[in-house]
């Protein structure tokens, strides 16, 4: 026993090194596997507060851009209101509200921490469980998809950015509705890749890519980007399409968190139908 203690004392440098490396590795592995990651993230109280103060100062420099965007959004909204339509038919038509049932609600949030230069990028926003944000909600802007909520604390949430190795988003080509998958292969943060579009589909550069609405997370028809380039890889049955994003991730400040009211119901149904044995 004493020999052992002496041995450890003699090589204490190496053993402390091993112990600390083990702790670090456990943290890394845990954060990869469990979504409810430990306290080392930017959504906890201390770091969140610091980033919030920093973002408050930084925000002044973006006011001009935000105003511009707001004006554009307002314009688009006003164009949709009944006041901007000319009535051509005197017979009024009824809109029965029970036909339309609300499926998505939105929560406004500001980005207080963001990066585009890593291999795995994360975003922190200033709304948390107190404001109704939950795990696996989508985050969008009028110009595109931003990411998916990973962790929530009472006042902040951390979001897996679209610019992350593991992000997969179901998307389709707007003009013909063909379904594919959007993923990001670094390093260019303005471009993502769309896969799983069969070879026979006709695509052109400039075609718009939108979300498919199949994912339970994002509503259908959110803009993502336009096709900037496509090619056929040798021996593959699918096109590899480069998509240029509408949204500049380096500049984005204000986002909407999407809450799908029927997500839980749809999820339960899908889980049940895939796990229960079928007899016919």
């Amino acid at each position, binding site marked *: 026993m004493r020999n052992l203690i002496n041995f450890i004392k003699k090589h204490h440098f190496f053993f402390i090194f091993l112990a600390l490396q083990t702790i*670090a590795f456990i943290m890394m592995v845990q954060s990869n596997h469990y979504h409810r990651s430990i306290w080392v993230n930017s959504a906890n109280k201390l770091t969140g507060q610091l980033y919030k103060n920093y973002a408050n100062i930084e925000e002044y420099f973006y006011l001009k851009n935000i105003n511009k965007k707001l004006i554009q959004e307002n314009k688009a909204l006003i164009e949709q209101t009944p006041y901007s339509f000319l009535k051509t038919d005197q017979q009024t038509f009824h809109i029965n509200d029970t036909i339309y049932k609300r499926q998505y609600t939105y929560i406004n949030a500001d980005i207080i921490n963001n990066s585009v230069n890593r291999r795995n990028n994360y975003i922190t926003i200033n709304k948390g469980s107190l404001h109704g944000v939950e795990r696996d909600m989508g985050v969008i802007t009028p110009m595109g998809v931003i990411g998916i909520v990973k962790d929530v604390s009472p006042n902040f949430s951390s979001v897996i950015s679209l610019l992350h190795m593991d992000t997969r988003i179901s998307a389709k080509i707007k003009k013909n509705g063909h379904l594919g998958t959007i993923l990001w292969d670094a390093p260019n943060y303005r471009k993502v890749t769309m896969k799983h579009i069969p070879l026979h589909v006709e695509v052109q550069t400039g075609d718009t890519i939108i979300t498919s609405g199949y994912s339970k997370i994002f509503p259908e028809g959110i803009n993502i980007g336009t096709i900037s380039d496509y090619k056929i890889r040798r021996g593959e049955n699918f096109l590899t399409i480069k998509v240029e994003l509408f949204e500049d991730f380096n500049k984005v400040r204000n986002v909407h968190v999407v809450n799908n009211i029927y997500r839980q119901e749809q999820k339960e149904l899908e889980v049940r139908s895939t796990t229960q044995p079928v007899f016919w």
Partner: protein
Amino acid sequence: MKLDQLPSPYFGNFIFNQMQKSTLNYIGRFFIIVIIQIFVLNNIQISGYINPFFYVFLILILPFNIPKYLLLVVAFLLGITIDMFSNTAGMHASATVFMAFLRPGVIYLTSIKKEFEPKTFPGFHNMDASWIATYSIIMIFCHHTLLFFLEVFSFNEFLSTIWRSLLSSLVTFSLVFIGFMLESRPQKR
């Protein structure tokens, strides 16, 4: 009484003597370096995803005679602080601890002088520029290589990862060199 049975004056003396001035200095440096890293350098990106990690400078300028266990603990604390702010649980901690582990060996191998007076730390006032360059480049490159491989977590993109860590190391090194220049200004006492 044998010599090695005497109560070792080493740990106690170190902590007692150094506690007042230089420890406080290092705590101050810790916060300044962390703030620079989080709020300035983490937002900088040069051509794609080169990201300078200047915070390793703190490990480079620790005193030569710092107890080895303290060296590792400081490295771990520094790494985990950076991790908390950049959403990378454990990655920076692991790379920084690895770098601290290499430090005594690198100093031993690169310097001609093997004994250092207590309280001295690497800088232009006691070492020449070429030694500082060699020492920092080896340490920074080891740190960055491990960090980038942990970030990608596979050897699939081996060459591109090495290339990225090399470029980032150069950028970090230039910042660290400036840091050494600032540290070695003649100080008023």
